[in-house]
């Protein structure tokens, strides 16, 4: 027994744990600053925002240690209990949850709140890993339908809240699907469709004042930009491939462009002509478009100013006036990256992005060294979730992606997210530590 435990601690991936702990520490210090502001002294009470976050971090640490002591087999065996439980919570929250910001996504327990969608990511990641390990890959119709059902159930429930951001995070499972046999075509087509869908809806709801034409829907500008990107891609591709591949590549890219633009145009027409106004508003709400005030890009403009004002080295811890004095709304949750960027400048921001990248790449690296299909697929799922969070949150804050509110893992204020990510990370660490004793 004692040799076994020793083995476990010897085989834990300290790099991944270190990166994750570093991220948690940075996130907490940043939250202290977000709660403080440049004109006040730090309040060390547990009642404060960072105090509550510290409680959550403490709870997460305890649970992490517990999970590391439990054999991995236990989690694999309880996958379906897990999945059923988290999905049931998602269903329950639709009935008894608190409505915050137009979405019914919270359970309230006194001062603390629980967001079941955060834990649903864990349930789905486990469920998908079990199913794909069981079917030995995504090769037949049964495995495809099963996978879609496992992902689709929580996604559907979350859409009912509605919470588009969290739904988009589930796209991260595509990495595992791709790894387990889904054709690359689906991956690229899926990504293209997703990008076109999001931008079509977002730009379609805006109005741009065009030269000569006058004010018209922003979709036109987006379509023109997409066309330009594809055209550039075709010419770039031609110059970078061997002559005998050129014709095929050009033909594929032209078809791809036509398909993407047609998809976008049809989608926009459907939105504009077929859907009833209240249905359209529903979708707009889903994507965080303020129906009453389409010109309100206040948040994103101020976010950009806050980041830009950080300069090379930033304003210093607790010294950022843009975030500290209320110019950036939600600076402690969805816009937490602004806080960090304003106070630590380019140096800090780039390091944080690199830290996330290192963490994600480490997870994929760990995935590839597994003998157990379950662990490999689960690791891919976890990496994919981290990646989607980074992509959507930081992309939004930097003004590269539409405004869709999701937390930045371990940085944003919120206990459910911290606890869920800690649990997922701990399970991966435990499963990875057992990689040499796995016989399957």
């Amino acid at each position, binding site marked *: 027994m004692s040799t076994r435990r020793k083995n476990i601690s010897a085989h834990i991936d300290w790099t991944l744990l270190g990166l994750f702990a570093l991220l948690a520490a940075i996130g907490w210090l940043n939250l202290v600053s977000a709660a403080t502001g440049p004109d006040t002294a730090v309040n060390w009470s547990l009642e404060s925002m960072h105090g509550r976050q510290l409680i959550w971090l403490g709870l997460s640490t305890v649970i992490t240690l517990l999970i590391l002591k439990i054999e991995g087999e236990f989690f694999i065996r309880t996958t379906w209990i897990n999945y059923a439980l988290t999905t049931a919570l998602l269903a329950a929250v639709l009935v008894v949850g608190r409505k915050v910001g137009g979405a019914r996504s919270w359970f309230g327990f006194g001062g603390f709140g629980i967001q079941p969608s955060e834990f649903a990511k864990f349930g789905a990641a486990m469920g998908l890993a079990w199913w794909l390990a069981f079917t030995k890959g995504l090769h037949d119709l049964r495995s495809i339908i099963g996978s879609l059902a496992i992902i689709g159930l929580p996604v559907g429930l979350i859409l009912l809240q509605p919470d588009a951001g969290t739904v988009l995070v589930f796209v991260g499972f595509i990495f595992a699907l791709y790894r387990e046999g889904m054709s690359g075509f689906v991956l690229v087509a899926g990504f293209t469709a997703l990008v076109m869908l999001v931008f079509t809806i977002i730009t379609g709801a805006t109005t741009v004042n065009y030269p000569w034409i006058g004010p018209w829907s922003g979709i036109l500008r987006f379509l023109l930009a997409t066309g330009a990107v594809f055209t550039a891609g075709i010419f770039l591709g031609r110059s970078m491939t061997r002559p005998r591949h050129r014709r095929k590549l050009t033909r594929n890219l032209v078809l791809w462009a036509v398909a993407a633009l047609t998809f976008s145009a049809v989608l926009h027409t459907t939105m504009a002509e077929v859907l009833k106004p209240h249905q359209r508003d529903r979708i707009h709400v889903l994507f965080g478009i303020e129906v009453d005030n389409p010109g309100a890009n206040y948040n994103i403009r101020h976010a950009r100013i806050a980041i*830009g004002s950080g300069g090379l080295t930033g304003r210093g811890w607790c010294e950022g006036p843009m975030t500290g004095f209320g110019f950036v709304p939600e600076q402690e949750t969805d816009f937490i990256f602004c806080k960090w960027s304003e106070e630590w400048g380019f140096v800090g921001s780039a390091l944080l992005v690199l830290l996330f990248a290192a963490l994600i790449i480490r997870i994929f690296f760990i995935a590839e060294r597994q003998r157990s299909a379950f662990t490999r697929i689960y690791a891919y799922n976890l990496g994919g979730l981290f990646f989607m969070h980074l992509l959507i949150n930081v992309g939004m804050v930097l003004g590269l992606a539409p405004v869709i509110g999701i937390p930045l893992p371990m940085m944003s204020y919120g206990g459910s997210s911290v606890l869920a990510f800690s649990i997922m990370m701990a399970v991966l660490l435990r499963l990875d530590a057992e990689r040499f004793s796995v016989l399957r």
Partner: protein
Amino acid sequence: MVVGIVVTITCIFIGRLVQLQLIEGELKVKASDLTESRTIINPSRGLILDRHNEVLVGSEAVYDLVVTPRHLRNLDTTACAIWAGISREDLEAALKKARRFSRYKPSAVRRRIEPAEHARMAAVLYKYSGFELWRKPIRSHRYRVATHLIGEFAEASADDLKRDREYDRHYRMGDYLGKTGLEAIYERELRGVKGRRSVVVDARNRVRQVGVAASVDRAAEDGQDLTTTLDLKLQQHAELLLAGKAGSVVAIEPATGEVLAIVSAPFYDPNLMLGASRGAAYDSLLHDSKKPLFNRAIRATYRPGSIFKLMQGAIALDEGVISPGTQLACDRSLIGCHGPHTMDDLSGAVIHSCNPYFYQVMQRTINKRSTGNHFTTAARGLDHWKERIEAFGFGTKLGNRLRGTAAGNIPDASYYDKVYGQRHWDFGTIYSIAIGEGELLATPLQMANLAATLANRGWYREPHFVKDIGGRGAPTGAGVRFETGIAPRHFVPIIDGMQNVVEQQGGTGWRARIPGVQVCGKTGTVQNDPLLDHSVFIAFAPRDNPQIALSVYVESSGAGGEWAAPIASLLIQGHLTGAVDSLKQARYLGAVPPMPDSQLAIEQPTETAQQP
């Protein structure tokens, strides 16, 4: 492939961070625009004092109500309009205009709010988020004197602001600056340095941090006080005597060149030009036919008349073409004359203001170096004569960088060549300038400077108006000594004559007589057809160690002795003895010479002359 996607996205993010944080500097500017609220602290403007440190012009404050549209919140326009003391329509128009100008920068809603009303408004300012009251220094003229010299302090025009933007970026819209006179010349010294205080505000415009931007914070430096050379009592006295008349008085301390008094009549109440009434007041002054805005003392050019003869005599003595005892006949076939005299020496000619005498004196001066041709002799002689006259300050801009001073006109050979053609004129053509008429033009300041030069027996100091600025003494160039190049002894017969002009029985300047003071003076009467003549008098006193030299010019008032001389004597008496002949003063105070509309603008030199 999966790792490739992660790396690609990471690179895109870092590229974007490079763009936002390292390249786009304007975001930093926008951030400080949002988070920093800069308050400009206006310094007090420097005082303007007389030579005895009496405050002529003080500094007071009015307030502007400004609004920053971004900070407007739940505005009740009806209540706000009542509070701001304007109509609701005006308030809404002002807000609309402000929004169009800038959401982030303040615009004026109402200007020039008096301190009493400011107190009422400031008490409830907190109710109107987005509004501020800005203090602004304005002028208060305690004694309402020397308006023309001190000049106007008024709102900066669009042109002023444009010039300032290229220059030193001191003013913002609605600020006041010196427009004319000393206020304009010494604007940089008087205005001081604006202070700046930055505070950090939060998104609701509440002040959160003070003194964090110490690098841009700065205390206001008050403007420097300006001590003029004016003597308040003399200035007030001169304005009292010139009230209701058109003309000027310039009084100079001969030893220093300091201007003791400078008056241009009619004048106006400078306090009318402050505050909200300025526009209407300025308009009525601008269109007044008597030109009250025009500073006659330095800008008006008149024919100097008989006072010019004093210079002719001194130059002729120095040239050696006459001696003090030279007797010349009053040959009235050359030029008209007046009074019962037939033959005079130099002193006598000054007393009688004999026109033929000075005709012949100038003729000798001009024709001293004969070239054999009377045309070229006259041309060369005239150019030489002009240099001698200019040594007295005529034909030059006196006044030590006071703006708008006129140079007057001293004709030279090329001037007459243009009028008559080369070799088409000689002394016989231009003789009227010998007695201060013809094409000659001089300012009252130059005439007073002549009196000072005579008082000093041959030199003068640059007349100036500023004794001290900011404790550093007079500005450069003030009081620089200029020589006429004429020996003091040559002035003796002329000063003898001047003393007798006043003291001799029947002298033209007898009205300038002061018991116990030796006054040396000279009258002049300048024809002003078809109206009454201009009356001129220059004088200095006492004869030995002179304390004051002055010129008095009264437009369209008749002979020089009648109006200008008694006014001069009252001023000299008041300045030297501290008391005045009250009976004499009473006669001239209320009395107003017939004063038609000013002819200054259309006045042309003529050849006709009249002598007293």
